[in-house]
C-alpha cells in the first residue's frame, strides 16, 4: 500500500449541495413548528 494512494482529488458533487439544502429546510420547518405551537 503506497502513500501516494492517499493523494486523491476531492470532487464536490451536486448531491452534497442537496443534502445541505434539504437539512437547512428541515431546520426551518422545525423552527416554524416550534414558534407556531408555542
Amino acid at each position, binding site marked *: *500500500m*503506497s*502513500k501516494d*494512494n*492517499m493523494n*486523491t482529488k*476531492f*470532487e*464536490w*458533487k451536486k*448531491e*452534497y449541495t*442537496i*443534502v*445541505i439544502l*434539504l*437539512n437547512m429546510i*428541515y*431546520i426551518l420547518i*422545525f*423552527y416554524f*413548528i*416550534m414558534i*407556531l*405551537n*408555542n
Partner: protein
Amino acid sequence: MALLDWIILGSTLLFIVGYGVWKTRGSKNVDDYVLSGNDAKWWTIGLSVMATQASAITFLSTPGQAFHDGMGFVQFYFGLPLAMIVICLVFIPIYKKLKVFTAYEMLEGRFDLKTRTLTAFLFLVQRGLAAGITIFAPSIILSAVLGWDLRTLNIIIGILVIIYTVSGGTKAVSVTQKQQMFIIMMGMFFAFFFILGSFPTDVSFGKALKIAGANNKLDILDFTFDTNNRYTFWSGITGGFFLALAYFGTDQSQVQRYLSGKSVRESQLGLIFNGILKIPMQFFILLVGAMVFVFYQYNPSPLNFNPAATEAVMESEYLDDYKALEEDHLELEMEKRIAQNAFSAALELKEYNAIQQAKQNIIKINEKERASRDTAKELIEKASTTVETNDKDYVFIHFILNNLPTGLIGLLLAVILSAAMSSTASELNALGTITALDLYKRNNKNPKGDKHYLFATKGFTLLWGIIAIAIACVASLFDNLIQLVNIIGSIFYGNVLGIFLLAFFFKFVKGNAVFVAAIVTQIIVIIGWYMDWMSYLWLNAFGCVLVIILAFITQAFDNFLGNSPIE
C-alpha cells in the same frame, strides 16, 4: 401478551433469521464474507447504515426523551449530514482506492503497524462493550415490563443474531437489515397513527401539537451557547459533527457497510441517503414521544413508568408515603384534564387571553406534576438503591403494552427486537472482521490460505457474539441507555478520528508521533470524563483536537532531535 402477539413476534424474528441464513449461504472467500463481494447497491448501503445506527435503545429511549424533556434531542443529529459529506468527499475515495477490508488497514499504509493495531484495539474495546449494551438495553426493559427472564432474553437475542451473522457475514447483515428497517418503520407509523386516533374527538393533530407546545415539548431548537446544556443547535452541529464523523468514518461497524458498495458512487449515495433521511427519522420518533405525552394528558399514567421501581417502593416502609403521593397524582391528573380541555376550548374560540391563561395553568400543573414525580423518585431511591428511578426508557414500552391493541403489541415488540438485532449484527460482523484481519492475519508469522481466514473470521464473529452476550448478562443500568452508548463512543472516537484526520490531511506527521500522541490523548480523555471536565459530547472534539496538537508537538520534537522518521 395474547397468542396473536406471540405469533407475530415469533414469526417475524424467525423469518428474518431464516431468510438471512438461506439467502446468503455459502460464502466462498474472505472478500465475499467481509465485503459482500463488493456488490451492494446504494439503497442497501443506506438502509444498512441507518439500521446499524438505530438500535433498540433508539426506539425505547427516544420517545421517552421527548415525553420528559421535549424534542430538543433532534439537534444532536444536526452535524450528521455534514459528516456524511466529508466522508463522501475524503474517506470513501481513499478507502476504495486502497481496496482495504477495514478502516484501520489504511492506517498501516500511512503510518505503521502499531498505529493500526492500537486503533483496532481501541475499536474492539469500545465496540465490544457497546455490543453487549445493545443486547442488554432492550432486554432489561422488556424483562422488567413483561416479566421475562433477563438472562434468557439476552441469550435469545444474542443467539438469533449469531446464527445469521456467523453464517452469512456482511451480506446476511445487510439483507436482514432491509427487512428489519421495513418492520421498524411500519411499526412506528402504525403506533403513531394509533396514538392520533386515541385522542378525544375534539383533539386533532394540529391541536395535539399546540398542547405539546404549551407543555414545552416542542422546544426543538435552542440557540443558546450554554456548554452545560447537552442538546443545543451549536453542540449538535459541532459535537454531533465530530461524533458522526468518527462513528461513520472510522468505526468499522459502519465503514464495513459502505465498503461493500459496488463502486465509490454507490457507497457515496448510500451515505447521502442517510444524510437526507436521518434527521426526519429522528424527528418522527421524537414526535411519537410528544404524541404519547399528549395521550397521557387525557389518560392515567403511573408516577414512575418503571414497574420494578414501583414494586420496590410498594414493598418497602415507604408504601404509605408513596400511596399518598399516588392519590395526589390522581387529583393532579384530573386537574390536568380540565386544564387541557380549557386550553382546547380557548384554542377553538381563538381568544388570546384565554389561551394564555390556560397555558399558564397548564405550566403550573406541569411543575406540580414534575415535583411529585421527583418526590416519587426520592422515595424509590430510599426504598432501593439498586432499582432504576429514571423511567425515560420505560415510557414508550408502558404505552405499547397498556394501550395498543392485540397484534400491534407483537409488531412493536418485533420492532424493538429487530432494531436490537440489526445493530448487534453489524457490531459482531465488524468485531469479527477486525480481530481476524487486523490482529490475527496481520500478526500471523505463517501466512495461511483464504479458506483459513474465512473460517477464522466466522470463528471470531462467533466468539464476539458470546462475549457480547456475557457482557449483556453482567451489565447494570446507567442514567439513560442511549446516552451510555454515546458516552462510551465519545471517550474513544475523538482520539481515533484525530488519527484518521492526521492520516488524511497532515502528511508531515509520522507513525511514532501519532502513536505517542494517541496513547497520551486517550489517558487524558478518560481522566477528563472521570473528572467531568465537560459534557460528554465535547469529549469527541476535545480528543480529536488534542491528538492532532500532541502529534504536531511530538513530530516537531522528533524533527528537532534529528531522528529519522519511522514509517
